[in-house]
């Protein structure tokens, strides 16, 4: 649920952002303290950018002690991939790329004509976790994004098959996080659980964090598809009967280009984006993610199978 707050200069929210930052840093340090081989999921999207920023703050003046991992569908926005590679190099972090394209080429997963590659990320993700022996996987998911995510723990155990069992989760009490797990299991860690979309943008603004250019309003060729503005790219050509037009848009989420819609916007600064987010009457996923519209339980089903 996106909070409706007047402005970021609101003193209440300033205090609240610091509370959120302190909580996330505490969680990230617990991961370092409790696990042998953590990895931080980094897609170049705003949530994972905030995660990486917090992780660097948590260990300052030491360097980021975790490698980064991206599950690349092969259909990502070029601006985001450029950002991802540049930042990983700047931070001196090892970047593990789990490729959906390679998984398709080797026959590990099968692509279905006309369907998004988003669900196909699960197998390369789990394969990379297993082959790198990662025991903790830090992700930027937030409970306000979606109803199944609202039931997710901060430390969330995945079995040998990477599966999430929402009916059998560990109780999570006080700020005592239990990362104990059996060999073969791993734990997903969500330090941004208590953040909302608005908090993310207000924090990016407060900290002056660089984000990929597609988050800002820009001119782009789009079509109306399934009630979303879909960008015309090499992976998403216009379909018959669709009218391509050029207009000012920006992205609220940056996932796979085939299922991530843009929103009409003229927000060209972080302050504009914060204002626009606060005033929005449509949720982030509702506005921009075709994959979550498939059914009421689309996210739950993907999560059960091991998705982010």
């Amino acid at each position, binding site marked *: 649920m996106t909070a409706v707050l007047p402005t970021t200069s609101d003193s209440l929210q300033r205090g609240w952002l610091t509370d959120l930052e302190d909580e996330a840093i505490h969680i990230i340090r617990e991961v370092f303290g409790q696990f042998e081989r953590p990895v931080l999921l980094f897609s170049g999207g705003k949530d994972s950018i905030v995660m990486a920023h917090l992780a660097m703050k948590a260990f300052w003046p030491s360097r980021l002690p975790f490698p980064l991992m991206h599950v690349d569908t092969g259909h990502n926005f070029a601006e985001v991939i450029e950002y991802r590679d540049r930042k990983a190099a700047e931070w001196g972090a090892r970047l593990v790329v789990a490729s959906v394209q390679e998984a398709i080429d080797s026959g590990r997963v099968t692509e279905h004509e006309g369907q998004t590659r988003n669900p196909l990320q699960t197998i390369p993700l789990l394969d990379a976790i297993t082959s790198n022996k990662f025991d903790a996987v830090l992700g930027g998911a937030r409970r*306000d994004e979606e109803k199944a995510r609202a*039931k997710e723990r901060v430390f969330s155990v995945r079995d040998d098959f990477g599966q999430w069992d929402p009916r059998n989760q*560990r109780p999570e009490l006080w700020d005592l996080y239990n990362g104990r797990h059996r060999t073969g299991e791993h734990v997903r860690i969500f330090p941004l659980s208590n953040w909302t979309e608005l908090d993310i943008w207000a924090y990016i603004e407060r900290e002056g964090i660089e984000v990929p250019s597609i988050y800002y309003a820009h001119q782009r060729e789009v079509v109306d598809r399934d009630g979303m503005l879909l960008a015309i790219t090499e992976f998403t050509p216009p379909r018959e009967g669709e009218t391509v037009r050029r207009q000012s848009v920006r992205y609220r989420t940056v996932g796979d280009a085939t299922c991530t819609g843009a929103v009409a916007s003229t927000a060209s600064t972080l302050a504009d984006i914060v204002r626009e987010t606060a005033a929005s009457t449509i949720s982030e996923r509702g506005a921009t993610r075709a994959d979550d519209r498939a059914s009421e339980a689309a996210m739950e089903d993907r999560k059960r199978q091991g998705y982010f």
Partner: protein
Amino acid sequence: MPSGLLRVVTAGSVDDGKSTLVGRLLHDAKVVLADQMSAVEAASERRGYQGADLALLVDGLRAEREQGITIDVAYRYFATARRTFILADTPGHVQYTRNMVTGASTADVAVILVDARSGVLDQTKRHLAVASLLRVSEIVLAVNKMDLIGYDEAIFDGIVTDFAAAASTLGVDHFTPIPVAALVGDNIVSRSTSMAWYEGPALLEFLETVEPHEGPSLPARFPVQVVIRPRTPTHPDYRGYAGRVEAGVLRRGDKVQILPSGRVSAVAGIDTPDGELDEAATGRSVTVRLEDELDVSRGDVIIVEGQPAPIVTRELNATLCWLTDRPLRASDRYQLRHATRDVRAVVDQVESKLDISTLTPIDADELTLNDIGAVRIRLAEPVVVDPYDVNRSTGAFLLVDESSGATVAAGLVR
């Protein structure tokens, strides 16, 4: 002006209409977004319901929607012009204590729901006992479904009297009763016109204005999470202790003691990436440098000399909320997780457990799922604790099953 953030836990038995109440609160506070509302309307129509079932805003799992029940704790985030809220919605069946304890462990306010037609049940008393035990500072008794009893004041008063009796047995000195009808929205966001006899606030009004009781200022407690040693050209000799101030305030220059070793030093600096701080208050995640080179590691606790000292002990008298199917018996072994320290533990003796209908302790030699009981625990290494009644964060611990890793108990130091 109340402080920024309020953490609220809602608890009720099955069919008390808790998801409906939460959905109604979100809907009437106008924090439900257009697409979320149309998804709920579409889902309600598919199920053949009259109008939108607001409970569907909250019940996120397939099984929940199929069975019309809430299975797991769900967290909701919303803000009004006056305050930001984190709402933990805890379901009331099977693992009720486990869910309630989870939500209550961090809550400032507990909203306990009762169906006006059934009144105070054992389940209600259990929720009250958990809220009281975990020291949730404000308790609301929300008597729901008032519309189904004709908004009868006498029935409401009777329920409040029963609840007050249970509260006084548990030593709860105050609570706030509110008559509501979540399905139609009476006294949720605005005051109801159907209950002229009720003069108190609507639920949201109460939540927006309540000031959770601030405990007395506590002595400083800083459990070390991570030792920061960059060994880089810019910071060749840097050694800092990263952690969160769990209680009190830590200041530069403070004379400190490291526990359990008992070595002493002083705070040379409090670092953050945004610059040095003169002091760090409760809740701040910082990195502390000490004047002396000491062997300090994860699990140690930094305290300030001259302030009331914690207890350093290998034996705990504790209250446990038992959260798993396999019963606890004397001589069972577990891993105990307290602050940033893990130690092996053996339960020496189960002393008693709480009888929920009378709310008094009775003799027991085991604890089963949902039981709350008193035990004695022996530890392989010392821990640095305070009584839970004094300090919610250094008085709390978990018991963890060594083989499965499951969290089996919430523990409170007595």
